[in-house]
């Protein structure tokens, strides 16, 4: 078996390291997402801490071999606690010239580059708009290049199975995966189990994929292609039982848990939209929990059916992305007016309009805060990490049913598709979500409020003696009858606002990580949590107490924690990094008259740790 390497091959040795970043990149049809998630599962099961970043095009199959068709999956795994998928890549697997061209800039100097050399014919190069063959023109000299004939080697390994050329070619990603398992000394068992479950009904495919993977592994062993293989010991995570969890999976589980803890049937009204559809796919499986998923005819029916379900006494949610939430706007105002519990999940993506469907952004915060006609305040909860989506779902549900109010839960594409290990909680660690339906017909008033929460009674149809009418027209305080009187309207507007404000009494006070006062406070929300945590940790270590940095990550964006204003005053500077043009900055400036300094990135990608560190250094200078 021939390989091309630029250096002589010494005997391989095994090196123990503490972290690695690996990226699989190829054509949309090359199975990079499957390959990446299989590798992720394996290292997670082994006990490494992980953070992933799947990055794929909006097109299902852009023209093969072209630059827009490149799909990537990045994994950072470590024996220490980690917070980001990693800035720079240690190992890049590039299945074609387009994947090489779009990803090579992120590979570290002297990094390992595994290239499918069978995909570098002149036509392939042309599709990637390359004029010379990088495998031959020395442009890759600063990397450890391994040109592997993935196509031919896979074919040789599978020849005897009698499959057609196309089906054989489709297995080459598993050959590459096998190579990576060898490179990091990992067992192929969990992927073998996955292949058997996935292709169980097609024994030939089971055999082919297993063989391809094992051939990749054996190839490394036999050819000693790499001088070293690596060992990354398990991470020292908090003791407990773990599983690997993506943000959308976590949301689905969180809502099932909220349904169980509240005793309410879960209803999801949803219309498919990237990157939120997986929540619908997940929840539609949980019929044994009595979950009703309704794939509506459009975004508006998705939210209004949920309002109908909430009216009937369900824990009702609707899941979407920014364009979908725009369509739900009027209905969310109705939920505000009729004071019905509802959770609207916005899995943000790049915009405006259709924008960047598969890329991440945090630019819907102001839409969530203000995107309705008139005064229609809605509490907002934001998830910070993929597994945190579980807790955010429970918290949003708790607020919705306790305060009889629609709640917006903000996640984003990065959290939705990214995965991390999750310590599975015991049931008694989950918050209780008590619910009381009104049943007493004596002097029943649909808008009489609980003095503490200001919430109105939840009086569901079918309850004797509670027949009443609600609707989007302004209501008279207490009675709920239609009322157009000026003073009543002002009172109702203020009551609805006060109810949302009162939630501030019911959420934890803000508590910065790191230094509790000092030179710089970083205030942020949502999926930037990982890179900010990593950057602050690194900078504090570096400074060794010479600069005092705090990091405050907001779970509740409306209402804000009661002590936020005080905390902002404890630091000389306030930095607000966001994947938008400065929306939280805008809010903090407006509310607290603070000189919030923005760090804003709008590229459809998360912050790199280095970008944040650079800004921190600049501000502390």
């Amino acid at each position, binding site marked *: 078996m021939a390989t091309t390497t630029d250096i002589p091959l010494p005997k391989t040795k095994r090196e123990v390291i503490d972290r690695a970043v690996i990226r699989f990149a190829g054509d949309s049809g090359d199975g990079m997402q499957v390959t990446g998630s299989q590798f992720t599962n394996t290292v997670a099961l082994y*006990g490494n801490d992980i953070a992933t970043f799947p990055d794929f095009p909006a097109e299902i199959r852009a023209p093969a071999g072209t630059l827009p068709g490149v799909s990537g999956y990045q994994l950072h795994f470590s024996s220490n606690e980690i917070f980001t998928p990693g800035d720079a890549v240690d190992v890049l697997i590039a299945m074609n010239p387009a994947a090489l061209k779009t990803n090579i800039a992120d590979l570290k100097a002297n990094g390992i580059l595994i290239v499918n050399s069978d995909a570098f014919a002149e036509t392939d190069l042309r599709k990637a708009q390359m004029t010379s063959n990088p495998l031959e023109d020395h442009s890759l000299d600063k990397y450890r290049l391994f040109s592997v004939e993935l196509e031919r080697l896979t074919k040789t390994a599978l020849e005897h199975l009698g499959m057609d050329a196309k089906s054989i070619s489709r297995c080459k990603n598993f050959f590459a995966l096998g190579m990576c398992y060898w490179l990091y000394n990992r067992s192929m068992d969990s992927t073998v189990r996955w292949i058997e479950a996935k292709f169980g009904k097609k024994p030939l495919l089971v055999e082919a994929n297993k063989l391809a993977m094992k051939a990749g592994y054996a190839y490394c062993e036999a050819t000693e292609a790499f001088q070293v293989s690596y060992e990354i010991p398990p991470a020292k995570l908090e*003791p407990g*039982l773990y*599983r690997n969890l993506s943000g959308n999976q976590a949301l689905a*589980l969180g809502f099932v848990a909220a349904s169980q803890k509240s005793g309410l049937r879960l209803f999801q009204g949803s219309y498919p939209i990237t990157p939120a559809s997986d929540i619908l796919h997940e929840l539609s499986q949980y*019929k044994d929990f009595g979950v009703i998923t309704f794939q509506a005819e459009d975004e508006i029916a998705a939210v209004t059916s949920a309002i*109908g379900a909430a009216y009937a006494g369900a824990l009702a949610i609707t899941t979407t992305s920014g364009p979908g939430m725009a369509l739900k706007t009027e209905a969310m105002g109705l939920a505000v007016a009729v004071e019905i519990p509802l959770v609207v999940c916005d899995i943000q993506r790049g915009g405006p309009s259709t924008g960047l469907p598969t890329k991440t952004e945090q630019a819907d915060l102001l839409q969530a805060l203000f995107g309705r006609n008139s005064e229609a305040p809605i509490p907002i909860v934001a998830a910070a990490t993929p597994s945190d989506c579980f807790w955010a779902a429970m918290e949003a549900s708790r607020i919705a049913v306790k305060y009889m109010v629609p709640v917006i839960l903000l996640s984003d594409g990065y959290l939705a598709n990214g995965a991390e290990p999750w310590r599975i909680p015991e049931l008694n660690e989950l918050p209780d979500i008590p619910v009381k339906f009104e049943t007493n017909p004596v002097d029943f008033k649909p808008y009489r409020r609980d003095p503490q929460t200001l919430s109105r009674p939840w009086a569901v149809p079918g309850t004797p003696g509670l027949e*009443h*009418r609600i609707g989007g027209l302004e209501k008279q305080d207490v009675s709920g009858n239609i009322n157009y009187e000026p003073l009543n309207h002002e009172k109702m507007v203020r009551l609805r606002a006060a109810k949302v404000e009162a939630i501030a009494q019911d959420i934890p006070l803000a508590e910065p990580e790191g230094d509790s006062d000092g030179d710089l406070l970083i205030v942020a929300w949502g999926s930037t949590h990982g890179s900010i945590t990593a950057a602050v940790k690194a900078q504090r270590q570096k400074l060794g107490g010479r600069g005092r940095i705090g990091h405050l990550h907001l779970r509740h964006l409306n209402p804000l924690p009661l002590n936020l204003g005080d905390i902002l005053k404890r630091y000389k500077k306030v930095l607000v990094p966001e994947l938008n043009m400065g929306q939280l900055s805008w809010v903090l400036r407006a509310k607290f008259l603070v000189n919030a300094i923005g760090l804003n990135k709008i590229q459809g990608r998360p912050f790199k740790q280095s970008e944040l560190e650079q800004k921190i250094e600049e501000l502390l200078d």
Partner: protein
Amino acid sequence: MTTATLPLLTKKDFQTDQEVRWCPGCGDYAILSAVQSVFPELGIKRENFVVISGIGCSSRFPYYMNTFGFHTIHGRAPAVATGLKTIRPDLEVWVATGDGDALSIGGNHTIHMLRRNVGLKVLLFNNRIYGLTKGQYSPTSEMNKKTKSTPYGSLDRPFNPISLAIGAEATFVARSIDVFQGHLKDTLKHAAGHKGSAFIEILQNCNIFNDGAWFSLTEKDARSEHILQLEHGKPLVFGKNRDKGIRRKLDGDIEVVQLGNGVSESDLLVHDAHHPRPSYAFLLSHMELREGFPTPIGVLRAWDEVPRYEDLIHEQLKEVQDKRGPGDLNKLLRAGDTWRVEAR
């Protein structure tokens, strides 16, 4: 549940203390009165009735019905009602809507509710005009209609609500007229007995912005010539002297024939509301657009062999639960590949 165990309800039990705010002389009063008269006769507890509406004059309906009621937003009542029905299939849910609400802004929800066969009764008040916004043409307005928004005449071809409903696979489709109280009540009762989606177009007069839209059907002299009252199992006869009928032609089309001169009722089409295929009802629904043909009222289609959407949902839930057992949260959280990190 039998009526014997129920408290005796009367029309008064379904009236609210709210002042009715439709214009004097509006056809909506007659529809309200008919519904309030029919509800007590259905053998259903009052708390199990829900009336849901969108926006428009018709959609004020819930405020005047002493049941559970929800005045939602423009066009979305079918979707709100669908959500409600999936959670509580046991409730008797009626939707009050208009030609603009159901066919313009809410057209999408109307057709999807009908195709799913959600167990809802839909009262579509058709006055061929926008009333609450003060007189613009509607999707059922005839062409060349001069209104505030179409001073030179409207250019849009109108929807025929009945054809649209049948085209959307509705399993129950009927038409009645606000001023025909007896017929309207009978039609409502028919609808109440239908399990799946029941779609009732009620021709309603807006005496302010479109007075007389249905006069050719409601005025004493004209109406028997222009109306064909459908009854299941009866031949299609109409006319002041019941001397005209509808006959099937060899090419499958229909024609109006004069009875007598060798043409008798036995030559006519016999109304079959329960036919599984919608083509016959669709043909009837289109008659009124043709010169010399009458407008059919009554039940055009009542085919109740299709399961209700909400029942299918709960059957599927039960099927999965029977197979897998009730969901166990602890197991769900621990599903798939897991690993244990030991204290060290």
